[in-house]
């Protein structure tokens, strides 16, 4: 008789460890959720204040009509690229080390894009008329303007929210079934509904594998299109400094850079909080570090091309924007260049650094601070010095804008905290599948590779 596959741990032990996040919440969890909720409430209050009083509570003026909100929007759309891109590219390239990471990455995508989608509504002068932008049949025969990049934005973001939610949910199905089988009472009922009657038959697994591969392949073009369209918000204008053909690929690269860095940060946090040191090993950080290094090199190249061509052409209006940026925003520019290029390239070239959790945390956090600044530097200095020198201006964010941006961060963290408490934060079935595939099966005295084999 064949013994069970040789693993160091029993199946239920692995389940226990990977589902540890679902245990009843501790006081610490409640405190964290309360704190995040309080920050979100502050942001909501700030937004309400803005809606009651007018846009003057922001720092915006003429000519800087966009500021921190659109910075936040582009930043969060960028972050949302992590998950789905990382997860689907690694799925398609059959990189097995992806398995413990992908759930967190996919969930992050959904929450980031949700947060991002709120910013364009928050920044409207008349938020209550936002539905004018939705194409719905109405008596007045009015239709939104599909020539406007803002409409493309809305379409792309809606598609991305739906797509990435389906992607996340599809991957969750087998895990939800495991949770269903381990819970009782009303929780059992909820998970039973969510698991959609998953039984784990061979037919179900075969369909599941086909569907997840298909979703992974389909979501990549959507993800690329979303950030290209965000870049078109800027690139299709006639504003010097925005009107640049390199913007779409440059934005996509920047998005993946901030996204990969955010996944690394999240991996470190999850590993620490849920004690998953055995599942998120230095190998994972090593591989993610390599990915971050490559994307950082690409970003550096794209940025170099953008600035270099402008400098070489030295078209006076365009150059004015760049010289204004470099003289008035020097510290920000330096933080951005260090964070996006120097730091990742210098540190992540070394295996030892990539395997050090402390270094990875520092690099990944800095990358995201730098990416926020990058978005800011694209939007604000450019608008400050447009074509007409008489109408030049400056911008600094107001308290309301800062609060709303902080609330966005807290809102994302809150959504993630809740998600981690109610759903398996590590892709349980994926991890177990890998273990089974790699396990040696005893046949008589010999130990042979599992017939499932590598994918």
């Amino acid at each position, binding site marked *: 008789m064949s013994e069970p596959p040789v693993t160091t741990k029993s199946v239920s032990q692995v389940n226990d460890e990977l589902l540890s996040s679902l245990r009843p919440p501790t006081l610490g969890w409640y405190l964290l959720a309360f704190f995040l909720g309080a920050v979100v409430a502050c942001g909501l209050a700030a937004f309400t204040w803005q809606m009651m009083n*007018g*846009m*003057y509570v922001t720092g*915006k*003026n*003429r*000519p800087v*009509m*966009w500021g921190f909100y659109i910075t936040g929007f582009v930043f969060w759309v960028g972050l949302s690229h992590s998950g789905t891109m990382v997860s689907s590219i690694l799925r398609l390239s059959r990189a097995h080390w992806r398995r413990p990471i992908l759930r967190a990455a996919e969930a992050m995508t959904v929450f980031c894009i949700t947060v991002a989608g709120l910013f*364009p509504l928050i*920044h*409207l*002068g*008349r938020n209550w*008329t*936002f539905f*004018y*932008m939705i194409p719905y049949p109405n008596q007045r025969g*009015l*239709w*939104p*303007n599909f*020539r*406007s*990049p*803002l*409409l493309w934005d*809305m379409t792309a973001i809606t598609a991305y929210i739906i797509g990435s939610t389906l992607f996340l949910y599809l991957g969750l199905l087998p895990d939800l079934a495991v949770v269903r089988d381990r819970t009782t009472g009303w929780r059992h009922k909820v998970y039973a509904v969510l698991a959609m009657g998953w039984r784990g038959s061979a037919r179900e697994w075969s369909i599941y594998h086909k569907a997840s591969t298909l979703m992974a392949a389909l979501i990549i073009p959507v993800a690329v299109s979303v950030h290209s369209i965000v870049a078109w*918000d800027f690139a*299709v*204008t*006639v*504003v010097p400094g925005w009107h640049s053909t390199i913007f779409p690929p440059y934005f996509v690269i920047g998005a993946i850079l901030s996204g990969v860095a955010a996944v690394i940060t999240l991996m470190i946090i999850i590993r620490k909080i849920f004690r998953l040191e055995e599942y998120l090993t230095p190998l994972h950080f090593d591989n993610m570090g390599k990915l971050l290094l490559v994307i950082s090199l690409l970003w550096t190249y794209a940025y170099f091309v953008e600035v270099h061509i402008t400098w070489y052409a030295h078209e006076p209006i365009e150059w004015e924007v760049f010289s204004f940026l470099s003289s008035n925003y020097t510290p920000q520019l330096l933080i951005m260049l260090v964070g996006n290029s120097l730091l990742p390239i210098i540190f992540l070239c070394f295996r030892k650094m990539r395997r050090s959790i402390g270094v990875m945390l520092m690099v990944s956090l800095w990358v995201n601070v730098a990416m926020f600044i990058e978005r800011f530097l694209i939007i604000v200095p450019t*608008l400050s010095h*447009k*074509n*007409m020198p*008489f*109408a030049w*201006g400056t911008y600094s964010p107001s308290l309301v804008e800062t609060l709303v941006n902080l609330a966005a961060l807290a809102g994302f963290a809150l959504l993630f905290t809740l998600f981690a408490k109610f759903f398996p934060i590590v892709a349980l079935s994926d991890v177990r599948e890998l273990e089974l595939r790699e396990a040696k099966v005893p046949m008589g005295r010999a130990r042979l590779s599992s017939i499932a084999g590598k994918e």
Partner: protein
Amino acid sequence: MEKLTSPYKWGMVIDLDRCTGCGACVVACQAENNVGICEKQEIAEGRNMHWLRIERFWVGEYPDVRVRFLPVMCQHCQDAPCEPVCPVYASYHNPDGLNGQVYNRCVGTRYCGNNCPYAVRVFNFYPHEWPKPLDNQLSPDITVRARGVMEKCSFCIQRIRRAKEESSAEGRTIQDGEIQPACAQTCPAEAMTFGNLADPASRAARLARSPRRFHLLEHLGTHPSVVYLKGGGREHV
């Protein structure tokens, strides 16, 4: 030349050699169009509501300093950058070649303001009030704009509409000089000439053919309806 669906293509010619920079046009515009009254702080914050501004440039070094004035309002571009970017068609092109703004449709994305190279679109950051007795001065022909919407020069579209109604009642087209926007009407130096550029005999069309003509930011290809005149042997003035 694109096909015109209307016998009119409104345009303005501004002779910079005549402009004295007195600012009467700015005041007239404010009075005519129910433009919000801004407090000192509002203006300091860069949120003034003027549809028409006089740009003032100092040229040369002391003591040989000259001052130049440039009145800038909405240029009513034929290929207006503000129009395609509006998600709700609040910024649109009308058959007379005017760049219109539908206040009730505007949701306040301010995208048009960013994309306007002339920075002539103003946004109602503040709710504006007309304390008594200034409210008596409000023109009944024009909407008072709410906070949160964009607005800009309309070439005094209410005057154009009225002239159109009168002329069509009399079964004729609008005569040259029949319409004057508030700025052109007020200009003491007669630097501004408004008229139908589609009629080659109109005064504005004749002036617009002057060798002194130029457009603001011509290289952008926005094809503005406002033509500036400058030169005439007085470049250094």
